[in-house]
């Protein structure tokens, strides 16, 4: 989960301290996505989180992951080549820009990656296709996150 420098940082710290197991996080996210806050609070209570903190956590998760986003069509040349998912930063994937890319009839969300098999080649991974070089992608949209709560 990415860190930012605003009030939300405390919640990040709180989540770090809690070290919730993956299934618990998945379930909480499921409830948050489905706007079933009471269920999420119940689950956090089982993890010994107070109701006040639970509300803070839920509000944070909702703001970070459920606020409106915009899809902006860009040119292949506008892809930020500095923003590449490298093998060594695989775990920081959330900090790398996600694009919506189209290759023939495949339309999928993906990140720009370094092709580990061919030095210098930039590729997108789409479903079960072999890695698709950037140049062969037909259309590309940048997924812009608008966190309206921070405006």
């Amino acid at each position, binding site marked *: 989960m990415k860190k930012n420098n605003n009030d939300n940082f405390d919640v990040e710290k709180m989540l770090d301290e809690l070290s919730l197991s993956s299934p618990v996080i998945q379930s909480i*996210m499921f409830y948050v996505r489905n706007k079933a806050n009471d269920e999420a609070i119940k689950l956090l209570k089982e993890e010994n989180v107070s109701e006040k903190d639970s509300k803070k956590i839920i509000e944070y998760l909702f703001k970070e*992951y*459920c606020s409106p*986003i915009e*899809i902006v069509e860009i040119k292949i040349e506008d892809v930020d080549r500095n923003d590449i998912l490298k093998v060594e930063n695989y775990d920081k994937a959330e900090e790398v820009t996600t694009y*919506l890319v*189209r290759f*023939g*009839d495949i*339309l999928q969300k993906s990140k720009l990656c370094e092709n580990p098999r061919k030095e210098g080649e930039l590729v997108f991974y789409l479903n079960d296709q072999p890695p698709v070089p950037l140049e062969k992608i037909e259309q590309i949209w940048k997924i812009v996150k608008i966190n309206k709560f921070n405006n």
Partner: protein
Amino acid sequence: MNQNENFDAEALLEELSLASPVVNGIWYFIREKDYAAARKAFVEEGVSKENAKKLVEYLREKYCGPIELIEIKIDEIDTTKVMNRENYDSKDLPQYMVRSGGMMHQSPLAEYTYNKEYKELVFYLGSQMVPIKKIDQVWKIVSKTKKVKNEKK
């Protein structure tokens, strides 16, 4: 169905009834922009060179032409065009890009039947089934399909 008076690509494709690996292979070539290889594959299936060229052009224009994503409101979704058991394989259903929380997927609107009395409209996001009312954002995928050029004799 293509309305071109001289060449009906859809009818020809239907007549050919190509095996799945052949179709996938041709798709692969078209996506990879290796149109010569796609034409060759059609010729190997008994299609004339001229028709192979037209078929590749048709598929390229129909499925690889530019598309547009238009953000719409949930209540603007056409709830009359729904994927169900009868039209499961239909490619004519409108496709949407839907977002629920951090998940974003392409999906048609589908009907989920709990029992004979209760039906619900849902989108499939990967392995999750999300009721239409719980979707956060939705974009309509608009295909700007160009018709195969008329080639009047």
